[in-house]
């Protein structure tokens, strides 16, 4: 592919949101007829880069070149007109209209000024046949599965003069057959010289379909590699930013130290999507770290353990007696609490004060009829503000104005006010500064010392090792191994997280 002109070339791309730099001087290129993957953990800048290419976000710095010409897309529509289309995970089509209309909407064939429905269906059929898809163009889009809707979205994209197709997490809700069908279509498009950007966190799929990988980390470019020349372990190491120097000395501890008397014990948890037959034990006074890549089922497992998603099968025991967690509310009553990784959308109410955010769950548990007296509320909030060191210590400040670390503490305070027995923390340190990170980590340790059972999820392996007493390793929805933290170092953990059964190369 050397010598060929890149179809898309992004140079020095920088995108800032206020003070935060989401994309920092990234170079990126795609060649015609290749499938390119963009890899990185949460917050690495993948979606920002996609948005910069497809006209959703403007570049603050840098240039975008399409087929040798410098371009600037003001809107997604302008990008589409230039042949750059995107198919999102949640399909952005219209479920209430027919398949044919979804392909042609805005460009319908017309006769005598009126839409020629017959011609539109016929042309839609041609496009669908060209992709080898047997879909009735007159059927309503909403009557089809998500997979078919995605393929229709691709059909809409290729019905224009398509040059670049961006597929953002296209396979995350598809089953194996549907993925195979999608890959067949992707290969077909590749033959036609379309450049395809395939974003997925499924490493298997990336290795199956992609020719080239670009890795991002913390908004910066790590590098561009040929998939055939990049070992899976190296790819993961580049995504997570670990030095792999002493990787060879991987030691394996065969016997994990099972706590003699687990407080919470889960057996054979299977939950759609993504968790298969998971076993988890956590004792009082212990921190169990959960380590796994994005898409390994970290969050899904946490949700299944805390009554947010009802597992399809499996048993959860608390103090040896079996419980069925019907709902988050039920889980809270038993003392199992979950702190979401999305503290803005699934946690705090940014418009409310620190006090209100802390008292919320306690009040909800008491019932709205038995209102906690204001003086008691204030006392409660102040005690947690002191205990956790929330800054500023003004209980009437809006939570939205606090820093990430302090917001996280407010969330913790709310949960701790419920006097929980099991605390499940999903990436509590994501997006907060180093100092606050250490504080949160220390806090988690103290909570465990006070007798709580803590499950601590993090994408950062060092952190999991520092905080956790034991570490459960998740791979593709399975708990692959559970080991004591002492027996691991970041490199061995990295190897386990990536894929130990990698064929030697």
């Amino acid at each position, binding site marked *: 592919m050397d010598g060929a002109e890149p179809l898309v070339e992004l140079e020095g791309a920088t995108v800032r949101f206020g003070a935060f730099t989401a994309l920092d001087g990234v170079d990126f290129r795609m060649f015609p007829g290749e499938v390119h993957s963009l890899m990185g953990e949460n917050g690495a800048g993948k979606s920002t880069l996609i948005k910069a290419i497809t006209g959703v976000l403007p570049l603050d710095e840098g240039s975008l070149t399409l087929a040798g010409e410098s371009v600037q897309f003001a809107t997604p529509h302008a990008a*589409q007109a230039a042949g750059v289309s995107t198919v999102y995970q949640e399909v952005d089509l219209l479920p209430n209209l027919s398949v044919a209309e979804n392909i042609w909407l805005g460009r319908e064939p017309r006769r005598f000024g009126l839409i020629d429905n017959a011609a539109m269906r016929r042309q839609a059929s041609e496009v669908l046949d060209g992709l080898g898809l047997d879909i009735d163009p007159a059927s309503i889009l909403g009557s089809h599965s998500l997979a078919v809707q995605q393929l229709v979205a691709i059909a809409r994209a290729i019905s224009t003069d398509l040059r670049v197709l961006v597929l953002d997490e296209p396979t995350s809700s598809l089953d194996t057959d549907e993925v195979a069908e999608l890959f067949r279509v992707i290969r077909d498009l590749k033959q036609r010289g379309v450049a395809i950007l395939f974003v997925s966190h499924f490493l298997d799929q990336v290795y199956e379909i992609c020719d080239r990988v670009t890795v991002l980390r913390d908004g910066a470019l790590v590098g561009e590699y040929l998939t055939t020349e990049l070992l899976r372990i190296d790819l993961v190491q580049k995504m997570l930013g670990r030095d792999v120097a002493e990787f060879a000395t991987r030691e394996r501890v065969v016997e994990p130290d099972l706590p003699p008397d687990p407080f919470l014990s889960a057996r054979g948890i299977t939950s759609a999507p993504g968790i298969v037959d998971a076993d988890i034990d956590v004792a009082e006074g212990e921190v169990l770290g959960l380590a796994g890549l994005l898409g390994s089922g970290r969050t899904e497992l946490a949700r299944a353990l805390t009554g947010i998603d009802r597992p399809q099968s499996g048993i959860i025991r608390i103090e040896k007696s079996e419980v069925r967690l019907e709902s988050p509310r039920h889980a809270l009553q038993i003392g199992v609490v979950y702190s979401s990784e999305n503290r803005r959308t699934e946690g705090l109410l940014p418009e409310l004060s620190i006090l209100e955010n802390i008292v919320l769950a306690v009040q909800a548990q008491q019932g709205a009829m038995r209102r906690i007296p204001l003086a008691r509320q204030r006392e409660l909030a102040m005690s947690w503000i002191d205990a956790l060191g929330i800054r500023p210590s003004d209980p009437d400040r809006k939570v939205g104005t606090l820093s990430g670390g302090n917001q996280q503490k407010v969330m913790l305070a709310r949960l701790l006010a419920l006097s929980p027995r099991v605390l499940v923390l999903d990436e509590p340190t994501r997006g907060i500064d180093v100092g606050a990170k250490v504080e949160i980590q220390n806090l988690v340790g103290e909570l465990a010392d006070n007798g709580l059972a803590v499950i601590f999820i993090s994408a950062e392996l060092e952190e999991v090792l520092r905080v956790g007493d034991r570490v459960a390793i998740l791979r593709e929805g399975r708990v692959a191994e559970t080991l004591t933290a002492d027996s691991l170092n970041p490199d061995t953990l990295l190897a386990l997280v990536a894929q130990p059964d990698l064929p030697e190369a």
Partner: protein
Amino acid sequence: MSATDATTTTSSASGAGAKGMIGTFTSRYASVLPTFAAITILIALLAGAEIYFGNFLTGRNMSALLLDNAYLMVLAVGMTFVIVTAGIDLSVGSVMAFTGIFGASLFASGVPFVIVIPVMLLSGVAIGLLIGVLVQYFNVQPFIASLAGLFLGRGLAYVVSLQSIRVEDPVLLWLGSTRFTLGDFYIAPTGVIALLTVIVGALVMHFTRFGRTVYAVGGSEQSARLMGLNVARTKVMVYVISGLCGGLAGLVLTAYTGSGYPRNGIGTELDVIAVVVIGGTLLSGGRGYVLGSMIGVFVFGTINTIINFMGAEQSWTHIIVGALLLLFIVVQRAIVARSDRSR
């Protein structure tokens, strides 16, 4: 033996064929089902009334159905556009009253019809435009924006006159009193206007890019925008169309009653919403048919006529329409829930 085998094979094959056809049908036309339900109910009502009264399905009676409800049909067409975008227009009753009384007063002061009729239509358009701009550019809830339109229209109607104004204009009287007859059946020019409005409305909805964009906006505004459709213009336009229909309904009602009256059409906006929903249009937007709304008007009118025939209290109309509305909303919820599940 062999004969039985043959029969079994044929029947199973045809069974599979029928199943396939049903599959194709539901995947293509699931959204028409509520409208079919409305047609079924209309037929049942008409048949039931004919059996009960014996003299219900007469040309006179059926013609009156169109004549008496022509203004409602015109309003229902405009409302269908608005509701398909997931909006609502509460102003239609007062817009009709305002344009009606305004027109009547212009006629009374001797202004010729070539000026009065366009002025009536444009007054409706102006109020519709105001609502549309409020909804689209000032981000006001359609309910609130059109409520403002409701008060504005009603207030303007009272400003024009507090009493009823008789209309003597020959053109308007011709519109209201002429009867084109065919056997027992007759149709007035106002009925022709109503049917033409339905036909034009249906054509626009189904065969123009604007019409399809109306459906797209109702399906998902965000997706429609990403597909490069002109969402803003479409959302303003549906209220303008509803306002235009309000003006036209004002004309039709003035011709029908031979006068303008500022208290006309109080509560009509709710009747209009009811007939549109009964006709199979989803209040959450994205699905519905202008022709369905016409069926809805006929259902509404038939219930009215039946109650007249029975000599019962008019309040029963509202009770029955209310019950039907409830039924339809439940049916629609069931359909939506099912199609959501299948995804």
